[in-house]
């Protein structure tokens, strides 16, 4: 087995373990490359099926192509597609840069808070109706107790400390100092009521692994990752006020792979275009403790 085969097998194992152990399970899909690879791995794990609902947190500041791409894939792959949002913050414009708040507070409101309440079912969830191709209010408001997330350890400092199965308490808090041991492919799958578990099947993948795998498997990825003729492409996708494209003329997956392997980005961190990382001295740790992915 080569490295990609091993990573794939490990992720499949983790996804199956999550599916077996958690009754109320969902997968976060940002529609970025990592969580799309994770979705592809889910189809591998379950032989073409996706028996886990996909949850997307819509900040309404996402680049519009991302939403179109999300719905097209959801319909084609017959996904149980759910989205949630922070309606109050959006309605009252408590957002960056319109409102008088900084980037971190905006992230907290539109991502962390929206996520927390969408997962717990306390804010409305919207579910894709495959017949009408529209979103309806989801009648299921049960909290999700297992949440599959596409975080990678190489992204930034706080993520390198994550477990594959990482418990969160009732307040969504992550106790970095007291994490469960993990060895011999055995994970924390027993947990007291009220807590929930985040599962990280991509923890050991690097950005390069992700692109090599997209290339090998021919996974459909949104065009935003490629140069559309202006000499720019997105390396990491987020909300448009806080995500800037990088200078690059890569138009294909292979060109992206080469850029990362030996080219101009071989030594530049992926999230260097994400402004919110720099406002917080501890990487994203403050946000992550409050539930940021």
């Amino acid at each position: 087995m080569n490295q990609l085969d091993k990573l794939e097998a490990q992720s499949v194992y983790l996804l199956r373990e999550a599916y077996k152990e958690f009754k109320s399970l969902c997968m976060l899909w940002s529609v970025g490359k990592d969580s799309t690879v994770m979705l592809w791995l889910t189809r591998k794990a379950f032989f073409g099926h996706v028996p886990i609902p996909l949850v997307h947190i819509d900040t309404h500041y996402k680049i519009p192509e991302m939403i179109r791409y999300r719905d097209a894939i959801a319909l084609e792959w017959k996904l149980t597609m759910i989205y949630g949002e922070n309606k109050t913050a959006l309605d009252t414009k408590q957002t960056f840069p319109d409102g008088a708040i900084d980037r971190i507070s905006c992230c907290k409101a539109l991502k962390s808070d929206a996520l927390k309440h969408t997962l717990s079912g306390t804010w409305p969830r919207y579910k894709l109706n495959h017949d009408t191709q529209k979103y309806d209010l989801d009648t299921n408001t049960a909290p999700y107790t297992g949440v599959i997330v596409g975080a990678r350890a190489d992204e930034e400092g706080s993520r390198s400390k994550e477990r594959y199965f990482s418990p969160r308490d009732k307040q969504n808090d992550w106790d970095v100092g007291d994490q469960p041991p993990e060895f011999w492919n055995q994970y924390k799958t027993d947990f007291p009521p009220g807590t929930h578990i985040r599962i990280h099947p991509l923890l050991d993948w690097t950005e390069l692994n992700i692109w090599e795998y997209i290339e090998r498997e021919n996974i459909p990825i949104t065009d935003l990752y490629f140069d559309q003729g202006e000499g720019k492409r997105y390396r990491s996708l987020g909300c448009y006020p806080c995500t800037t494209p990088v200078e690059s003329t890569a138009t294909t997956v292979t060109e992206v792979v080469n850029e990362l392997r030996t080219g101009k980005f071989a030594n530049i961190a992926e999230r260097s275009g994400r402004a919110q990382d720099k406002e917080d001295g501890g990487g994203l740790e403050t946000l992550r403790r409050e539930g940021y992915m």
Partner: protein
Amino acid sequence: MTPNNKTDQMNIVIVGHVDHGKSTLIGRLLADTGSLPEGKLDQIKAMCEINSKPFEYAFLLDALKDERAQGITIDTARSFFKTEKRHYIIIDAPGHIEFLKNMITGAARAEAALLLIDANEGVKENSRRHGYMLSMLGIKQVIVLVNKMDLVNYDPEVYSKIVDEYTQFLAQIHVTPKTFIPIAAREGENIASKSTKMPWYAGESVLSLIDDFEKEKEKDNQPFRMPVQDIYKFTEQNDDRRIVAGTIETGSITVGTPIIFHPSGKKSTIKSIEVFNAAAKQKAGVGGAVGFTLTEELYIKPGELMCTQNELQPKVGSKFRANIFWLGKAPMIKDKKYKIKLGAARGNAYLADVVTVLDASSLVSDTQKIKIDRNDVAECIIETIRPIAFDLNHDIETLGRFVIIDDYEIAGGGIVTEKISDENTVEKGAERRNFTWTKSKISPEKRARNMGQRPCLLLIIGKQETEKYDLGVALEEALFNQGKTVYFLGISNMLLSMNRDARRRNTEDRDEHIRQIGEIAHIMADAGTIMISAISEIEDTEASTLKSLVNPYMVKIIANGNTDLYDQKADLIIDTQASVQDRVKTIIDFLNSEETFNPKEI
């Protein structure tokens, strides 16, 4: 894959006593191999400037605020570097005793280890403990780095004293290190290239020696083992495949191979190897997360161990000798029910006996201790409630090790060293109970003749809850009206009486429920009564447990309707389309054919 693709990758862990320089070494390795992402170094340097602290290599690893505040690594950070030969993931494992579970988490992911010893401080408690843990975790490639040689003026005598002392320790636990290297991580001596400060050292630098670590050999030539992680039947889009899914631990398998599942002992043959979005495969090998369909579909549950029929079989039993390391806050004690996970199997287990408790850092053993405290290593006897399939650790490593769950947490890990014949199984217990049972003057035969019936347990299984109940009650009434001595015991009634304190029904209590049904049925049968009960489904092991408990009386399993794939253990299958009266008649006909009533010979 393109030929210039250098994704050959190895995980190495760096362990050792607290403050012996692990983070500094990693920082140095990253810098010396030019592996620092540009953004990261700037970020850390800027942070140091803001906080008016001089930059140190260790800061690169201490990415979290918590850590910088405490000045020690509290968790397993990962970082990446590459040499000409391959990519490395370095796992920095904390040296503080309090974080042993994090050290184990880090080390368990590694294929090789660098163990650091401070030249100035010498061999310390965790130098030894970590060495021991590496051997338990199965990490066989170890290089020992004697660090901070600059603090002892690069003195070869200090170095060789440590080498001698530590080699002696490792020999006791049967670990042979690849080599020792004297280094000064902060100064970069013997890290990327050979140091000029230690001409007396004839060996190579760290970077050159880690490239000599070998990739773990794939265990293709071992007997085939696949823990059954799950069984899938996704009916959407008219998919009628029933797929047995899992990850192959050892060996390989081809389509058409006869297979056997343990502990159930059920047999079938590989019909297909299922893959998504790729050509069908004829062969599957080690490490693959795969799925199979079988020629004869079986009712098996996740947790079974799939093996080939013609290779070495695993052990099946409920008692084994093991070496355990304990991480739990509460000690491991006898007579407490724990959960065990071994491969895909989950079950309940007890600590049956503590043979000896070992201090992993001094290797002093204590044979008087009856519990296993946090950070202890112990030889002990583990007993599972149900039989479990396993291998001895020295035969097939991954199926000879397990974890113990205490109060929701993974509290310990162990390796299986020997199977022990089990005397405390339900079967043996029932035999002993029958042997010492106070016998009545009325023999079972006399009672049966007198009452005109052979006592037994009639167990109705089936999916529809109310139907089974209705059927059981109707059968009881019909037999009663024929003058039989019969009693219907609903499971809920049993729970109300025997299990009044049980707060909730869960799988852990299920073993106990089965045992209780068996014991009650045994007493009822001993009194000459036919007991009827109903349960939604029953596993093979549960059926055999019931039979052992009710023995010498009979258990008849009656399947109310086609119960999918477990009909084979039913003595009678009845048609759910028929009315309750007709079904009752079918059962009574069956009982008559079995000479349950007015038996001529007993």
